[in-house]
């Protein structure tokens, strides 16, 4: 799949919650094919401490308006700048990058599990799965009620199960504590979120022999497979998270031990 470098125009910047924003950017050239799980490399301007591009997952794609949505969580200076993007500003992207989630086959029972900005790739993935004729379910985890992100669009695609660590909304605990997660027989689980969440989901899926793919957020310098900084130890050696990933089947991962 061919990648490109392009200036896109910001058409919307919507604040979801404290520190979370959805930024929509539109391509005047028309969008290329983008697969769920892929990401973009954003050039961050006007941020003196941001030297490299920043990898951000494709949150959603709208081919009618040639618009990509990005769900941005403010983590530092780079994402802080992105959170302040104004309509009409242009941002330069290299995209689409990375592999993609393996889509389920008809009849599969599918769970999309995530939390925080890890929800980002799951919306587009859910949409693609829904389009393929399967109704996905979602398990979304948050710290507490006040940290819950808007997820109307997820509800439009399928049932959403919520968990909060303090039980202030939905199930108490982590997403792996949600009864629907533990009790149902899933054919496929797709997960993106903080590392402890992904590890817990992976452990559960391995134990129950469920097909499971996770999307990793390794530190990246290039996003294009030319720097070899973003490696993930796998059963076939060190692979690049930006080209061989960011999506990996948990069976292939020697799970990273660095914090």
């Amino acid at each position: 799949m061919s990648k490109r470098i392009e200036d896109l125009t910001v058409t919307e910047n919507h604040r979801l919650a404290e520190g979370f924003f959805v930024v929509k950017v539109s391509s005047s050239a028309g969008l290329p094919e983008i697969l769920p799980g892929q990401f973009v490399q954003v050039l961050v301007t006007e941020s003196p401490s941001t030297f490299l591009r920043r990898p951000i997952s494709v949150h959603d794609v709208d081919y009618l308006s040639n618009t990509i949505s990005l769900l941005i969580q403010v983590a530092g200076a780079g994402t802080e700048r992105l959170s302040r993007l104004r309509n009409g500003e242009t941002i330069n992207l290299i995209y689409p990058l990375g592999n993609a989630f393996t889509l389920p086959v008809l009849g599969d029972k599918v769970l999309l599990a995530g939390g925080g900005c890890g929800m980002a790739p799951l919306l587009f993935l859910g949409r693609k799965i829904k389009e393929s004729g399967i109704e996905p379910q979602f398990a979304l985890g948050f710290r507490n009620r006040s940290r819950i992100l808007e997820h109307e669009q997820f509800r439009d695609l399928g049932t959403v199960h919520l968990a909060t660590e303090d039980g202030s909304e939905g199930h108490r605990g982590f997403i792996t504590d949600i009864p629907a997660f533990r009790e149902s027989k899933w054919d496929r689980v797709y997960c993106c979120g903080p590392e402890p969440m992904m590890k817990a989901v992976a452990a559960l899926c391995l134990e129950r022999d469920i097909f499971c793919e996770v999307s990793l957020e390794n530190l990246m310098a290039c996003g294009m497979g030319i720097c070899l900084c973003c490696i993930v130890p796998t059963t076939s050696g060190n692979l690049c998270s930006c080209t061989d990933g960011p999506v990996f089947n948990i069976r292939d991962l020697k799970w990273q031990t660095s914090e």
Partner: protein
Amino acid sequence: MADLRIKIGSLELRNPVMLASGTCGYGAELEDLIDLTKLGAIVVKGTTLEPREGNPYPRMAETASGMLNAVGLQNKGIGYFEKHIYPKLAEYDTHVIVNVNGNTVEDYIELARRIDRLTAIPAIELNISCPNVKQGGMIFGTNPTSAREVIAAVRQAYSKTLIVKLSPNVTDITEFARISEEEGAEAVSLVNTLLGMAVDPKTMKPVLSTVTGGLSGPAIKPVALRMVWQAARAVKIPVIGMGGIMNGDDALEFIMAGATAVQIGTATFIEPRTALNAIISIDSLLAERNFDSVANIIGIINRI
């Protein structure tokens, strides 16, 4: 249009701008984004005799106007290169230079011999300056005796254009440039990365798995430029300059300071078109100032 051609030993390049080793993969990764045939050359990934997994994650840290890397020469080894990568590279209408790395002098010799047989590779860049490996690498590039030994040995083993890539982590860069020249190198390229490190004050640990790593990007440009200037005054062979070049003006600074050619490294991660833009800038400057050829401005700061 001015004459952008330059010569590195017997190798003629259509222009003086190359992609630096370790920052452009094998070229293919960038084909969607830039026309590789417009480049002077590409210097492909550091290659070793045996396959290497490189260093553990994390291998990267962003720093002020730069980055640290601790990749550690991850590559599939020369055997894989010959069988699976070389055939594709041989089809490129671009000069492909291979960056060569060993643990021992024997490794370097063996690699040089094998690459000598690859007809579509006109030159090697002898990397005696990788700061991210325990054996070989920078140990050769920071000790004059070892440097001389490995360069002389490779010169014997390799019949085509030999470029020696120097480490900036030395007291006197001219010493290593001179040794390279004396032992028959046709060019020196510099600088490789500066040895640096970063600490995460939250975890109270080093950021890189290897503690130290190689610093690249515009942060190092003033140091790189100074060393290129010194080296170019010390030797007659061409100097290939690099270190923090982000745009055409930066490339011109190196050429005006004495570099016959330049390499673009880290900039490619941020703006893959940097090398192409640099070619355009050099061409425009020559046109504006009525220079016939890029040769006219090499080292011009020493003359005006």
